[in-house]
C-alpha cells in the first residue's frame, strides 16, 4: 500500500453533492497518494482535518459548501485558516452570502469560488492550479 501523502477534503451537508463531486475529483486526483475525504457535518470536518494535519498529511485543499447546519462555510473557513493559515480553501456554493464571501476574499482566505451548479471543466480549472502547486 502506498504511503499517504496528500488529502482533499469536501464538506457539504448534501450527500448527493458529495457523491457528484467525489466522482469528478476522482478523475483528476491520484488516490494512491491522495486521500479524498467527505464530510456532511462541518464539526466532523474540523476534527478530521486536525487528524490529517497531526499525521503530517498535506491537505491540498478543502472544498466547502456555504449553507450548512451548525455553521456556515464562511465560519468553517475562518476557523480553519486561523489554525492553518496556508490551507487552500475553496467554496462551492449556490447560495452564498455575497457579503461574507467578499470578506473572505478581501481577507485573502479564499483560494477559489465555484458556484452551484458547476461544470466539470470549471471545477477542474479552479482546482488544477492548486493541485499543481502542491505536487
Amino acid at each position: 500500500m502506498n504511503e499517504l501523502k496528500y488529502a482533499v477534503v469536501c464538506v457539504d451537508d448534501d450527500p448527493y453533492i458529495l457523491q457528484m463531486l467525489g466522482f469528478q475529483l476522482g478523475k483528476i486526483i491520484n488516490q494512491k497518494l491522495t486521500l479524498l475525504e467527505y464530510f456532511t457535518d462541518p464539526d466532523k470536518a474540523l476534527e478530521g482535518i486536525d487528524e490529517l494535519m497531526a499525521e503530517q498529511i498535506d491537505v491540498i485543499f478543502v472544498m466547502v459548501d456555504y449553507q450548512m447546519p451548525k455553521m456556515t462555510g464562511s465560519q468553517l473557513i475562518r476557523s480553519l485558516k486561523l489554525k492553518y493559515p496556508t490551507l487552500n480553501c475553496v467554496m462551492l456554493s449556490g447560495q452564498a452570502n455575497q457579503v461574507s464571501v467578499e470578506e473572505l476574499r478581501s481577507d485573502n482566505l479564499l483560494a477559489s469560488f465555484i458556484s452551484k451548479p458547476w461544470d466539470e471543466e470549471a471545477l477542474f480549472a479552479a482546482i488544477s492550479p492548486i493541485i499543481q502547486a502542491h505536487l
Partner: protein
Amino acid sequence: MNNNNFHEIVNLLNNTTELIHRLEDDGTISWVNTAWKKTLGVSDKDCLGKRIQDYLSEETKLKFAEIFKRLKNGESIENLTCVFLTSKNQPIYLEGTVTPVMEEGIVVGSRAFFQNVTAQRKALGDLRQMTNLQDILMRIATHYINVPINDLNQIVHNSLGDIASFASADRAYIFRYDFKNKLCKNTYEWCDEGINTQIDELQSISLSDMPYWLSKHKLGECVEIEDVELLEGEGIKSRLKLEGIKSLITLPLMDEGNVLGFVGFDLIRNKRTFSNDEKNVLKLFAQMLVNVHNRLLNAMQIEKTKEELEQMNETLERKVSEKTKRNISLSKNIIEQEKMVTIGEISAGIAHDLNTPLSTIKVGADNIKSIIETLFTKQITLLSANELKRILERIQTSQIEMYVGGLQLRKEKAEMFQYLADNYQVESPELEKIADLLVKSRVNKEDSFFIQYILELKNRIQNLEVLYQLQMAYSQLATIKNSSDKAVKVVQDVRAFIKGETQQEKHTFNLKSNIATVLGIFNYELKKEVDLQFNVDESIELYGFEIKLFQVWSNLVKNALEAMEDQEQRYLGISAEKTNTTLTVVFENNGPQIPSDVLDNMFKKFYTTKGRKSGSGLGLSIVKNIADEHNAVLNVVSDSTRTKFIITFKV
C-alpha cells in the same frame, strides 16, 4: 258768570285728569267731576248726597277730623295725600290741594283737586316689598343662570310678568329688530289679567314708523312716553292709541354697542312716569335679557354644532362601515398576499432548496455523459454479452452507496488486497488495481462468489472497470431521481402553500404532512442552526381548512425564527397531542420572554414589534383569524426560557 261760562267751566273740570270734588261743610258730597267718578267707579246718583267718609280708607278717615277742622278755620291744605276707595274697595292714592269754600266770611264747604298717584304709590309699595332692587334682579338672574335651556322661554315670559308687576305695567313685551328687512317683531309678551294680547298683530312693524324710537335705542337710550297723546311724528302712534295705551317705556337691548331689540312696558289703565330707580331696574333687566339671548344663541349654536357633529358622526360611521365592508373583502386579499410575502421573505431559501437538487441533477447528467463516453471509447466494447449481462445483474442487486470516505476506502482496499493475496494467485501490480476497483464498485470479501467469477475472466480488469463505471452511472441516476423528487417536493410545497383558498371546504387530512409541507418551504431557514424537534404522530388527522392551516404553521415558524434571531442556541419544538375531545398543537421556541403588553396586543391586526425592519403586523392576527375559523383556542405562554403557542382544536 253767565250760563254759558258756567257750562264751559264745568266742561273744563270734567275733562281734566285731576279728581275734583265739592263738599258741604258737614262733608256731604255736592259735586264731583268725571275723572273722580271714573276713577272711583261711581255715578252722580251713587255719590251725590253721600258723605265723603264713605269713600275714604280707614287710614284717611282718621286724618279726616283734623283736615276738616283746618278747613273750617279757613285754612287751605296743600300736598295732601289721602287714600280713597273705589266702589270695588280698591285703594286710590291721591295727592292734591283742599281749600275751604267761603261765603261771606263763613266756611260753607270745601273743594279738592287731586292727582291720582296710585300707580307710583303701588310701584313704590312693591319696591318696598322687595328688600331692594338687587333682590328682584338677583332672583331673575339666578333663574336665568340655572334654568335648563329648554325652559328659558318660559322663564323669560315669567320674568316679564315679574318686572311688569313691579313697574305696574299692564303689558310687557320684547321686540327684536330685523335691520336687514327694516322691521321689528314682537317675540315675547306678558299681559295682565283683562288686557288683550297684541303679539300676533305685531310680527312685522316697519322701522320707518318709529324713527325716534330707533334713533334713541341705537344710542342705548330708553324711550319713555308719559302720554301717548303727546307723541308726534311716529307712525306707531295711531296703533298705540288704538290699543288704548296711555304711557309706555321701552329700553333697548344692547349687546356690545349693537341694539338687538327692546323690552317695553305699556300702561293702559293709568298713565304714569318712571323714577330713575325704576328705570335703572328696567335697564338691568334689559341687560339680563341680552345675556339670556346670548346664552340662548350659544345654546342653539351648541345644539347646532352637536347636530352637525352627530350628522358628521353618522356620515363617518356610514363611511367607516362602507370601508369596513371593503376592508373585509380586502382582508381576504391581504391574507392571500401575506402568503406571498412569506414566500418572498423565504424565497432565497426556496431558491437554495431548488438549486441544490438541480445542481446535483445537472452535474449527475454531465457525469453520466462522461461515463458513457468512457465506456464506449474504452472498455465496454471488449466485453461479451454474457459478461455485460452479469455486470448488470450485479449492479441491480447491489446496494447503492453514494460515496465512501477516503480513509474507509483505503482500509477496505488494504483488507481486500490482503484477502486476494491470501486466496488467489494474482500478480502484485494487478492485484492492487483489482482490489481498488472491487472496493470502489462496492464488492466486499463476502461476495467471494462474484470475486471468483471476476478473477477467472480473461479481461477481468476491463470487466471491473465497466462494473465500476456502470455502478457509478447507476448510483448517479438514483441520485438524479432523488434530487428530482426533492426539487418536485419543494415546488409542491410552495404550490400547496400559495394555492388559493377559494372554494376550499373543510375536510380531513393528515396533520403531520400538513405541517411538514410548511417545514419543507422553511427547510433552508430551519437548517441554519435550528434544533428542530418535529414530534407529531403520523396517525393524527385533523378536520379543517388544510390550505389555511399552512399559514398558521408558517406564521408560527416565521415568528419563532424571528424571535430566536439573537439566540446562541435555537430550539423549535413542534408537537401534537390528541385526546378524545381535543387536539392540541404546540409550537415551542427558546426566544426571549414576551413582555405582557406585547402579549396583550400580539394578535391585533397591524401590531408589530419589528418596526420598519420587517413584518406587516398581520402574521399573528392571521393565525388568530384562522384559529377562530376552526373554533380553536389560541394561547401563548412565555417565560424566560420558553415561549409556547398552543392551539387547541375541538375534535
